[in-house]
């Protein structure tokens, strides 16, 4: 890791030998991150509302702004104006600290998420490891929230959350490791650059196991974000609202923002690890500075990169929402079963398989592109096949089936 001194000085262009310089450095980057997290929150909450509405034959918010786009902003302002309620028997200090801790763990993650080749706040050598580490801070914030609320439902939610987050960290980490093995680096920048070129150079198509690795990562990341079907910690029909039952106003808004921020982070990681990061998959566009030239070229290239990674991340967020509004919630023991009996062994096997593949196939020159093309074709074919399979299932749905005719024996 370039230590933060080096990093800060490279950012600021001078060496911060004073506290003032350090604070300045923090301000220079903290403000845009905060703004970005808020915008991500606003957009994804609006998306959630609209997607859920359209899935459910509704229209969703329509009044504030075009198609209700400013509804979330209005809600945020309303939440700001709410009374700050703390339950009488709550542990006041921890109660106040918990949302901050949860938000901080998300917020810090944004520091290493790259937006393009140049636009990354801290390009750490251990980028992935850093994300996994700060992500695990969230669990403790949630436990703090649940315990300090002095409400049994909150505590149930907190314990569920901690169980879930701690357990799913393992398959999540193992699937990250598989990518690290392929890329040979933990730096998000290096990983992305290893996927430059055409679409089939993306890690998703790098070898036959990467799809499975991605699926495990995606499932585990749903659990890490506490998204349906893993929304047990806040299961509203069982635990009222889980660990944030007692929170209202701005503290609740911070939890909410952190949740959507975390969704963006896991999606962005998935994009960087599997979907070519800021690369569009078309070499001409990715290296447009070569044809435009000068500062304009660099700016355009970086803008395309940033746009690409944000769009890809939001597409994955949409998939998360799609899943949320389709599937019921699973139960605590089933959640643990899924993690320990299926995801964990599979991710271990996949790690070994990916390592072996890398050891034997990796050195072959140009093999990656060929493999990628084959895998891309296979992916497209299997998606089409799955679509047809899904069609067949709905045709055989229970309605068309013969109803059991029961003779009334009475």
């Amino acid at each position: 890791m370039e230590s933060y001194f080096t990093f800060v000085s490279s950012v600021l262009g001078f060496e911060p030998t004073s506290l003032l310089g350090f604070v300045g450095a923090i301000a220079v980057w903290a403000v845009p991150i905060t703004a970005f997290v808020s915008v991500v929150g606003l957009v994804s909450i609006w998306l959630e509302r609209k997607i859920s509405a359209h899935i459910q034959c509704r229209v969703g918010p329509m009044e504030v702004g075009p198609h209700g786009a400013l509804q979330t902003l209005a809600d945020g302002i309303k939440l700001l104006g709410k009374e700050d309620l703390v339950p009488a028997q709550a542990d006041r200090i921890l109660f106040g600290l918990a949302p901050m801790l949860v938000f901080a763990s998300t917020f810090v993650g944004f520091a290493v998420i790259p937006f393009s080749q140049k636009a990354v706040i801290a390009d750490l050598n251990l980028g992935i490891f850093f994300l996994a580490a700060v992500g695990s801070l969230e669990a403790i914030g949630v436990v703090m929230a649940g315990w300090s609320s002095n409400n049994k439902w909150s505590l149930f939610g907190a314990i569920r959350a901690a169980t879930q987050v701690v357990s799913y960290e393992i398959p999540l980490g193992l699937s990250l490791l598989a990518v690290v093995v392929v890329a040979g680096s933990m730096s998000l920048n290096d990983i992305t650059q290893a996927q430059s070129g055409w679409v089939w150079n993306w890690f998703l198509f790098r070898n036959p196991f990467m799809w499975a690795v991605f699926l495990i990562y995606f499932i585990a990341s749903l659990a890490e974000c506490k998204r349906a079907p893993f929304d047990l910690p806040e299961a509203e029909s069982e635990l009222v609202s889980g660990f944030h039952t007692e929170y209202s106003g701005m503290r609740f808004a911070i939890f909410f923002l952190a949740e959507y921020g975390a969704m963006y982070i896991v999606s962005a990681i998935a994009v960087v690890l599997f979907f070519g990061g800021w690369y569009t998959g078309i070499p001409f566009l990715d290296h447009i500075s070569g044809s435009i030239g000068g500062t304009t070229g660099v700016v355009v290239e970086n803008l395309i990169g940033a746009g690409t990674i944000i769009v890809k991340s939001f597409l994955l967020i949409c998939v998360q929402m799609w899943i949320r509004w389709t599937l019921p919630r699973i139960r605590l023991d089933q959640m643990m079963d899924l993690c320990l009996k299926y995801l964990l062994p599979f991710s271990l096997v996949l790690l070994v398989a990916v390592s072996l593949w890398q050891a034997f196939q990796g050195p072959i020159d140009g093999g990656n592109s060929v493999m990628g093309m084959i895998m891309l074709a296979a992916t497209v074919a299997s998606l089409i096949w799955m679509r047809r399979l899904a069609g067949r299932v709905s045709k055989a749905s229970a309605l068309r089936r013969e109803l059991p005719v029961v003779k009334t024996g009475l």
Partner: protein
Amino acid sequence: MSAAGRGREGEWALSFHAIIFWALAAMTIVPAIGIVVSKNIVHMAFWLLGTLLGVAGLYLHMEADFLGMTQVFVYIGGINVLLLFGIMLTNREPLYVRAAVKRPAIASAVLLGVVVAVGLIQSFGATEWHTVKDAVAPGLADASAKAVVNGDGTAATLGTYLLSDYILPFEIVSILLLVVLVGAAYIARRDPEGGSA
């Protein structure tokens, strides 16, 4: 080249580097005192969070990036959460330390603390520390220090060492952990004969 390596000895006390160090040290010590004086077990566990974060910060400050992050990942994300878990799941309603600690216990604790402190200071003094500044000197070839200087981080060097020079201890520790895991699973296992435990 990091800022840490640039400060001259005389400016040390006033430099930005020092401010960070003292801040981190305070972040480690204050919660540690909090753990000792706190009466509520859950508060102790949350104080521990501060200490662990401070230690992680110190590691990072000493350019040990991998170690620092592992500290966060394992100790905060894993062990501290499990600790809280254990307290919340096993303790009954009042989560306070019930019986007042007896005098002899305090005395022996202080004694033990002094012994440990003396031992630690002794060993710190006796150890020959390789600093980053030393690593730049041509005579010393400490690979990890070089990696730090080159901005490559310590992970790669650590990995190389663990899988070459220190492979035996590494494997022994792995097997030990495996044994612990199997043992824990065995103890926690529900007795199939006796129904749910």
